[in-house]
């Protein structure tokens, strides 16, 4: 492989993503998730109060903290820059890892590069500032650590897996349930470690161990040790984080439940807003019951990894553990799994192919399977975007399709940008506007500074909401069709209550599809 090829391709990938992000931005496409983190960054640097709540408890912490590194590029671009760099880093690590495999670089470099540039979900993850990017990275690193441990059993790899799982959970709290999903393979690893009679099947070995006190104790001790070394750090980190939330934010689950700390509260509304398109939403909900099958359908590369796989039983269970995870998550019927996470099966498939994909068949056959599966996976990426229900994914797909035709067109402002432009020309230190960034974080970040804004982190906010006349000249109201209408007190329903009960006189100054600005008289 030519020297520096990976580095050059990584830089090219970054440039590619930056151009796409710029074109999308120019076309008015911004993902609410990225805007959420942008607004928190702005609050962190500009607001005087509640630094702890913003810096400490904005969740997922790692997504926010990774964006923090890119603040010099501007609040708006920082989360996008972070996700671009993270996805590019993932590309770099994958290609470097493949150097250890028997595959020719002439095969894996183009395939992986094609995946990262042509698979729409990778592009989406890179240019939106969403947490998907960092999740892909840590999914890859976790499985790589486990596979490295299986190849060379030094505790270092387990510790690294533990650190990555901690990062994984702090990129998406739901992954805490990996503690259950990983049980089968951890148990099998223990079983393999407490060697009894390797010529027998694991089932026989297990039976033998249950009937031997010493071996039974060894098996239990080893399983417990592996569990602790893998999950102690994540669990302690979570307990500590929850304790800090309880201590400083008043609730142990503030980081999960508060719309000021976690985008998902409003993001879920945006993604699954039945009001926007009640017909399309069947895709997400109907896929839940067969989600593992659907994931396999969307990721032929993962199927290829299973076909190519040759290893021990516990290694196979490790590869399958994320499917177990999905099964566990479905035990809670209230839980709706986002389909977008099918993407994380691609890095897992790649690392599996890298470590276990060359011994079963000849390298030529393996290469063919790898190649065909990659192409099919890219195709399935397009399929996904054709059928997705998430409004922002639909918008992304539409924007990407129309990008070539809009190259020379005028710059288009997003709705929140238009509202922000209007507010910027309206407010001053004397004429303040009351905004609830639980829903209007996208507007706040586009305004660019906090001068003239009355926001929830201020101690006077509740008083002003109760009686806007005291301090606010204007109010930003979420209209009924706004997906986050129910997440904010400053919505049209409450406005009408205030108008009736508190005799609040307002004058509509400006409105868009989701927002309305009223003057308080």
């Amino acid at each position, binding site marked *: 492989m030519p020297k520096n090829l990976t580095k050059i391709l990584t830089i090219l990938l970054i440039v590619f993503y930056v151009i796409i992000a710029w074109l999308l931005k120019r076309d008015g496409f911004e993902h609410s998730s990225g805007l959420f983190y942008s607004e928190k960054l702005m609050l962190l640097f500009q607001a005087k109060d509640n630094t*702890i709540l913003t810096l400490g408890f904005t969740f997922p912490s790692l997504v926010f903290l990774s964006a923090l590194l890119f603040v010099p590029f501007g609040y708006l671009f920082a989360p996008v820059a972070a996700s671009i760099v993270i996805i590019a880093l993932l590309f770099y690590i994958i290609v470097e890892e493949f150097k250890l495999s028997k595959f020719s670089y002439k095969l894996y470099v183009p395939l992986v590069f094609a995946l990262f540039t042509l698979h729409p979900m990778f592009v989406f993850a890179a240019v939106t500032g969403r947490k998907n990017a960092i999740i892909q990275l840590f999914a890859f690193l976790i499985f790589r650590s486990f596979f490295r441990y299986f190849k060379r059993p030094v505790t270092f790899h387990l510790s690294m897996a533990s650190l990555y799982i901690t990062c994984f959970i702090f990129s998406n709290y739901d992954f805490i349930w990996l503690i259950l999903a990983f049980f089968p393979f951890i148990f099998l690893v223990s079983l393999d470690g407490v060697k009894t009679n390797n010529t027998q099947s694991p089932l026989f070995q297990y039976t033998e161990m249950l009937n031997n006190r010493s071996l039974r104790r060894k098996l239990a001790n080893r399983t417990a040790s592996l569990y602790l070394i893998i999950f102690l750090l994540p669990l302690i980190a979570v307990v500590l984080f929850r304790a800090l939330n309880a201590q400083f934010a008043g609730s142990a689950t503030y980081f999960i439940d508060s719309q000021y700390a976690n985008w998902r509260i409003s993001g879920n509304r945006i993604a699954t807003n039945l009001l926007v398109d009640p017909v399309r939403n069947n895709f997400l909900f109907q896929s839940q019951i067969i989600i593992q099958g659907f994931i396999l359908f969307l990721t032929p590369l993962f199927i290829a990894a299973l076909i190519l796989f040759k290893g021990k039983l516990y290694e196979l269970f490790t590869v399958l553990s994320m499917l177990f995870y999905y099964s566990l998550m479905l035990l809670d019927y209230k839980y709706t799994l986002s389909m977008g996470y099918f993407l994380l099966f691609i890095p897992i498939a790649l690392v599996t192919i890298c470590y276990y994909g060359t011994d079963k068949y000849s390298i030529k056959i393996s290469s063919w399977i790898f190649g065909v599966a990659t192409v099919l996976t890219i195709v399935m990426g397009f399929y996904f975007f054709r059928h997705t229900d998430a409004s922002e994914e639909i918008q992304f797909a539409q924007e990407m399709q129309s990008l070539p035709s809009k190259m020379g067109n005028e710059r288009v402002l997003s709705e929140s940008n238009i509202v922000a432009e209007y507010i910027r020309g309206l407010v001053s230190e004397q004429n303040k506007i009351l905004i609830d960034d639980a829903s209007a974080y996208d507007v706040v970040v586009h305004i660019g500074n906090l001068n003239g804004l009355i926001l929830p982190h201020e101690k006077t906010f509740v008083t002003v909401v109760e009686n806007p006349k005291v301090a606010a000249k204007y109010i930003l109201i979420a209209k009924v069709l706004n997906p986050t209408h129910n997440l904010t007190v400053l919505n049209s329903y409450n406005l009408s209550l205030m108008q009736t009960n508190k005799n609040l006189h307002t004058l509509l100054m400006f409105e868009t599809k989701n927002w309305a600005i009223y003057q308080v008289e």
Partner: protein
Amino acid sequence: MPISSLDNMVSAGLFEANKLAEIEVIANDYGYSYVKTALNFGFLTRKKYVAFLEREGFSFVAVREEELDAYYINQCELLELNAILFAPLRKLPDGSLLVAAADPQDDKLKTLLSIRFQMPIKIVAASDLDITWLIHIKRGEYFVKESVFSLMKKDPDYSGLVTFTDRQLIFFFGLLAIIVVLLFVNFMSTALVINLVFSVLFFITILFKLYLSLKGSMAEMNEMVTKEEVATIKDNSLPVYTILLPVYKEDRLIRKLIWNLRSLDYPKGKLDVKLLIEEDDDKTLNAVRNLDFPANFETIVVPFHMPKTKPKACNYGLFFCKGKYLTIYDAEDVPDADQLKKCVALFRKLPDDFVVLQGALNYFNKNENMLTRMFTLEYTYWFDYMLPGLLSLNVPIPLGGTSNHFKFDKLIELGGWDPFNVTEDADLGVRVFEKGYKVGVVNSTTFEEANNEPFNWIRQRSRWIKGYMQTTLVHMRNPAQLIRRIGWWGFLGFNFFITGTSITFLLYPILLLFLLIYAIVKLAFVTALFPEWVLYIATFNLVAGNALMIYVNMLSVFKRKYYELILFGALNPIYWLMHSIAAYKGLWQLIYKPFYWEKTEHGLTKVSSSANVQQLNEAEIVV
């Protein structure tokens, strides 16, 4: 072969003739008398020898109580007296010189002395141990003074004789004065900064330990020397290896010691074992005397001189060493049988600048009680993870108390151990780096007895922590010079690992108390004093720090497959509180009794070392 008691024993059928040739070779190599060689290299028991001489008509004199004319003994070198085991006592009224000797039938000695003193010689029999005691007391003054002061004379900057230098005192009191003034000027801000510095320092030190453990865990499967390499070493190519065994009132362990030494896979004649006994330690001396089987070590009596420390005894022992390599074991140590051979192989493999190798230490009585389990976890992560971690980072490695293997000539060049430092091994490890040499880590374990009694443990630990403080004070006398010698990385590593260890233990109860006041009692003044973000950081640092240390403890079970200990890692915060008690005791002693050597009682365990070590070794193979 000249006539000696051994020849007569052979003639009397009390000694196997085939052993004489072997004894002769060793005696010539070491320059020892035959009897000394026979008694100290496992050929002959003292009881058997005494019985033979008494049968021959010799009555043993109590040489320690005999009248002695110093004039005659002063004309003999201690090294010679020690090698041949004789002591000129006084001139008798008949004009002859009365000489006590371990071998009264040694004609060669008689001829030698009659030529030297130009008078008839009358040799009487005396216990070789009593002669050893006498000659070291009477003629060891120069050597013992050298062992105490030679480092100070040669390299005063490295001597711990002065605990606090003037500059350090000015720094400490200056810093204290500044803090007091700042507290008066702006109490809130000063308290805030102190709080932050304390908690961040605490956390960084622990993070560094985690980092070291992770680095060390990468080397978990590395074998510096393989069994195959050891097998290829031919016995005749092995050099003489000195083992120093400094003991004090360890009479209960002497039998064990012999068995442990016997299990070493090294040619008998090339093991130069020195049992270093203090002048007033008759208990141990008598235990050696009363042995029913041949001793495989030479007894050296260290004359009294303050400070009464192990490094002083070891320095004294250096004058009598014959080995190319040297190691130290404690009396209760059970080293891996092939440890010495591994060290020889590794020294041959490594570049010349590696002058010392540290073996891993672990405990044979790990499951005795909670303390021994915690101690085992600690030692395991220390020796199996942190030291390899330090090695990989090229940071000074504080040597462990025993099982450090030196190149003898380099040890002499380095000035030996600092007798004023109560963790002379850690100090020497740093000095090795400062002098441009390196410490290696050998993949061989010595099993020791874990302290199973809390007060005994605190005594031992207070000495260790005090020693770390001494080591910090010695090497940080001139920080700029230290940086020049060991580089920034080494400097940071030294401070995080050695300085940081003592500071962490001192800070731990303060931070814990602070957290309890804040989080549980919720005293209003704490929240009034510090902004929320400071409390956030402090809480995070303490809780995360504790959690990481628990993790590091748990990590340690993997290499040796001590899975049953993993849950005990969770008790680390309690273990650390014990460390803190020891740290404050050590600090107090540093100020008031800096050179006082807190004696650790050994032999308290009820666990059989040999049986357990065998079990541990088997477990490593089978599991």
